């Protein structure tokens, strides 16, 4: 039923989005303290020898792929909340879920708990989400999206403060590592991280794919969604859980990288020119991966001899965007 004209435009959008990600990955593999040409990379990929092979296998391959996986998970997560709350400010980073996940991981390390990081991150994220929902609850009415977002920002600050407190009490070397991780960092990632983020990420994307039709109904409002056969509350809680878990998967391998989740959705939607939740989620995943990979390249190479954590760069890119969004909300009289 969709017209040929708009079909072509959308196809071009997807091609552009995919091209940007491919380019970002290539740049990420090639650029660093030692430059590796694409030809060397290709030779390394084919023969498994030479500087290209070392770069792919050890130096930059794992961290680049971890960035792709984490960025995709965060991008999809942000879009879930943006669609559910109909607000571009709604994302797990802004709403404190990622700080909660980060806090749980730091607590696990500080207290020497032998719990895998993804599980810690998931628990922290879910607790933060439950707190946000509980604290903004008031009898009778449904919480306004903005209330939830503001309460989430508060929870985020609280979780960050707890993390800082725990980090300060750590031994110096451990504290430095933890601080770096809390900023959001892709340094020293290995194939274990790649496997983890892609494995868990793929699982959650399948779960999300099964929920996407209900999401397309929820988007029309609760009453229409119910009339069209959705179990509204169940569907909403299911999506919130998937969103929090996707964010936790990202946090577990890259730390609470700020603003990727918030920026990816609108960016992907704009570039691909799509509106349906299924397409928006896919576009957000690709855009999230691209943003994270690019931010990682820039933070690695912006200052020669100094590797900044990736979160510093996404923070620099994301903060102006956040301010612009807030300014728009103020203009619209929402705040």
């Amino acid at each position: 039923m969709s017209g040929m004209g708009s079909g072509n435009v959308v196809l071009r959008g997807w091609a552009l989005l995919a091209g940007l990600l491919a380019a970002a990955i290539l740049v990420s593999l090639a650029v660093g303290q030692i430059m590796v040409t694409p030809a060397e990379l290709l030779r390394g990929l084919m023969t498994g020898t030479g500087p290209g092979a070392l770069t792919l296998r050890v130096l930059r391959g794992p961290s680049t792929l971890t960035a792709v996986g984490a960025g995709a998970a965060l991008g999809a997560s942000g879009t879930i909340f943006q669609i559910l709350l109909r607000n571009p400010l709604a994302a797990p980073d802004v709403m404190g879920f990622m700080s909660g996940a980060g806090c749980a991981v730091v607590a696990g390390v500080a207290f020497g708990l032998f719990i895998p990081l993804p599980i810690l991150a998931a628990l922290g994220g879910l607790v933060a989400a439950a707190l946000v929902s509980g604290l903004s609850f008031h009898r009778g009415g449904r919480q306004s999206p903005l209330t939830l977002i503001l309460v989430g920002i508060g929870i985020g600050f609280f979780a960050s403060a707890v993390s800082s407190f725990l980090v300060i009490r750590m031994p110096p070397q451990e504290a430095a590592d933890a601080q770096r991780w809390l900023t959001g960092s892709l340094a020293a990632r290995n194939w274990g991280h790649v496997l983890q983020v892609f494995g868990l990420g793929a699982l959650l994307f399948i779960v999300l794919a099964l929920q996407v039709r209900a999401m397309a109904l929820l988007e029309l409002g609760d009453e229409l969604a119910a009339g069209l056969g959705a179990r509204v509350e169940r569907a909403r809680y299911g999506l919130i859980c998937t969103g929090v878990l996707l964010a936790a998967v990202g946090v577990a391998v890259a730390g609470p990288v700020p603003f990727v989740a918030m920026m990816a959705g609108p960016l992907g939607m704009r570039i691909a020119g799509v509106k349906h939740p299924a397409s928006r989620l896919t576009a957000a995943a690709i855009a999230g991966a691209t943003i994270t990979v690019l931010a990682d390249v820039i933070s690695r190479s912006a200052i020669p001899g100094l590797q900044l954590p990736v979160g510093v760069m996404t923070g620099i890119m994301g903060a102006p965007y956040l301010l612009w969004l807030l300014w728009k909300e103020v203009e619209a009289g929402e705040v």
Partner: protein
Amino acid sequence: MIETGLTTTSLTLGYRERVVIRELSIAVPDQSVTSILGPNGCGKSTFLKALARLIAPTSGQVCLSGDDIGKIDTRLLARRLSILPQSPKAPEGITVSDLVRRGRTPWRGLLAPWSEEDARVCQQALEQVGLSDLADRPIDELSGGQRQRAWIALVLAQNTPYLLLDEPTTWLDLAHQLEVLSLLQQRNRDHGTTVVTVLHDLNLAVRFSDHLILFGGNGLVAAGQPEDVITPDNLLSAFGLKALVMPDPITGRPMIVPH
């Protein structure tokens, strides 16, 4: 007695302490157009929502062909009965066809691809509301009347024998109100769809309905054919309105002329 169609038995509805509808037992005649009328705050929207299970009754039940709708599986209910709430809001930027396609959700298996049947029903829904040419346009770019017809196409694509609409003509000018109502009447005549609407405009309701349910401040005032429901006495007790009722020069049905 074998129950058919949409019926209520001792239905009581309310929010917290406030009872809006008390002990109402009533039947909506099958394959007809029924309008629910009454003054603001009389509970007519609440009643419609209860018929569609959007509100759970305080007591009593709503039955669809004898089945308590509270016990029907949500998705199966959505194949039998559809509801268009008042003033729905479309997600930003989605097109008419994207909206209408979502009406097929209750008919599609979890992993089932888009079928020819789905495409055919959507096409037909768009044709019936006269929006085939605008299928690829974003909803936000349509006029008020076109937008309302797009929403109606969504519930037509749901393709249910029972179609409930809460004030489908709000915010429309008179010409577009007529357009929307004759569209619903056409659907009833062509498909035998049972249409139930909440309406504000009494004369329009009389004109397009086979059956009326009139509420007043204290519950049901009258239900039946327009000729029997629209009487000066009933209007006085439902609305506190003094009015003449005379035959409509075009249709011969009752027409209300307020004093």
